């Protein structure tokens, strides 16, 4: 950017600042942040967005712009760190780069950085970052193999850092997330050896002690997470035995959805129970079964492709179009005769799925 452009941008920024001061609004904050972003002042743009968010609550546009500014700054810093590492590698740079990748959800790259760091004498700290990256990957994809490797890397980190709490704490959180309470109790015991008398740890020890009897083995817990796609905390009794989806919130929404022109079927299912509007009798049952099968297959394919948790499946063909929105509570689906699912129907199906989420269900 040459000096003329910069000079003219300064003028526009001054105007935008004046507008924000005289009449604070989301649009004026967005305009000011946009002007800063245009001349490459990402940190300033992010600061303006945060100020706007403080003033106007959770505004989607401001949040999106703030996220984008943060991502651009991270990208810039990543490039800079990569260049510096090529010139003169050192521990601090490796750590920061790995953290940046982890923050951006690039766990594989973080692990690659840790592996490179290990080659350059990273020892325990690098092992810890590698374990952290693998744990992030396991939590995103819920694959047993990732979990197994995460524990393997944690073993190595503990071996390299014998009196360090960090790998033990990481192990404890991972064990709790999969519900392997027996191993979690052992990890708490090891932590108590390092910090004797810690009341929080002692309380945790007592809690896990009461859960040990029915606790699965480590391998069984990993297997269960892979099979169900849910971590231990997501399998609380409310989730495990959900109420039938017949509460007031869902049925009217389903009926409204089914009454839309071109909608052939609308359904909501949770566990083995399904509410279907449109088809009746055996056809309704078969439609519900089809949706369940599509969700199961798609969930496993998404995970194996490394795409993470399933959010939506959309199918289009000569029959029309189908949109399925699965979630923790249950899956909502709509089958239409249109070649694509219109935006309005998408919004309704997402809202239906959201209404069936356990916490909303309880409120209803």
């Amino acid at each position: 950017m040459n000096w003329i452009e910069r000079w003219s941008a300064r003028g526009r920024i001054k105007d935008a600042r004046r507008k924000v001061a005289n009449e604070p609004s989301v649009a004026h904050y967005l305009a000011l942040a946009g002007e800063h972003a245009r001349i490459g002042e990402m940190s300033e743009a992010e600061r303006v967005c945060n100020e706007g968010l403080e003033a106007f609550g959770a505004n989607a546009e401001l949040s999106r712009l703030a996220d984008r500014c943060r991502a651009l700054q991270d990208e810039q810093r990543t490039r800079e760190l990569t260049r510096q590492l090529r010139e003169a590698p050192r521990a601090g740079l490796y750590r920061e780069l790995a953290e940046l990748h982890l923050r951006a959800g690039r766990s594989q790259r973080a692990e690659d950085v840790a592996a490179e760091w290990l080659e350059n004498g990273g020892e325990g700290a690098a092992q810890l970052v590698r374990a952290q990256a693998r744990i992030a990957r396991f939590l995103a994809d819920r694959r047993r193999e990732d979990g197994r490797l995460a524990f393997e890397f944690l073993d190595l980190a503990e071996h390299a850092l014998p009196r360090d709490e960090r790998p033990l704490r990481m192990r404890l959180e991972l064990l709790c997330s999969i519900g392997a309470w027996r191993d979690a109790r052992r990890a708490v015991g090891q932590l108590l050896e390092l910090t004797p008398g810690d009341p929080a740890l002692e309380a945790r020890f007592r809690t896990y002690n009461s859960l040990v009897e029915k606790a699965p083995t480590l391998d069984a817990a990993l297997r269960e997470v892979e099979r169900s796609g849910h971590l231990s905390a997501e399998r609380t009794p409310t989730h495990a035995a959900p109420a039938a989806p017949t509460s007031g919130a869902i049925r009217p929404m389903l009926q409204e959805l089914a009454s839309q022109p071109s909608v052939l079927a609308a359904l909501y299912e949770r566990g083995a129970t399904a509410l279907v509007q449109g088809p009746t009798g055996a056809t309704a049952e078969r439609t519900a079964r089809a949706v369940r099968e599509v969700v199961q297959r798609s969930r496993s394919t998404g995970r194996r492709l490394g795409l993470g948790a399933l959010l939506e499946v959309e199918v289009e063909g000569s029959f029309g179009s189908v949109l399925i929105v699965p979630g923790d509570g249950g899956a909502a689906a709509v089958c239409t005769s249109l070649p694509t699912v219109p935006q309005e129907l998408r919004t309704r199906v997402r809202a239906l799925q959201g209404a069936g989420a356990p916490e909303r269900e309880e409120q209803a």
Partner: protein
Amino acid sequence: MNEVLEPLLRIPGVRVAALSTPDGVPIAWLGELEHAEQSGSDALAGLVTGWVQGLAPSLGLVSWDLPQRLVLRCSRGTLVVERAPSAVLFVVVEPGTAVEDLRLPLGAALSRLVRVSRAPRSLLSTPAALPQRNPKGLSASLSDNGSDSSSGSLPA
């Protein structure tokens, strides 16, 4: 086939663009899937086409035909599959990328694919070399004798 896929990979947000046969044999593969359980285009193309084929029995309840377009939206990316007459074209895009914007480029890629596969082989392949020009004497003798070289009457 890379020339069909390359424009797709240039679209912002597209991580992978690939083409495979309906039974999962990869024809062309551009890009990389970072977190996939298995590496290699063979395994991944098999996984995608396996998913498409696996949905057929379930979707058979609503249609005789296999679906034309499938979108699998996940937390770390979206898989978009388009079926061509004898191939499966698919792309993996970053989360947040507008999948609807890919409708036109994917359609264009499929049309191009169909055009390429239907074109006569003579247009696609490199044309054969032209016959070599005969030496001057030989051509003169051929015109004199009014017969070709197979007759074996070369001039003295």
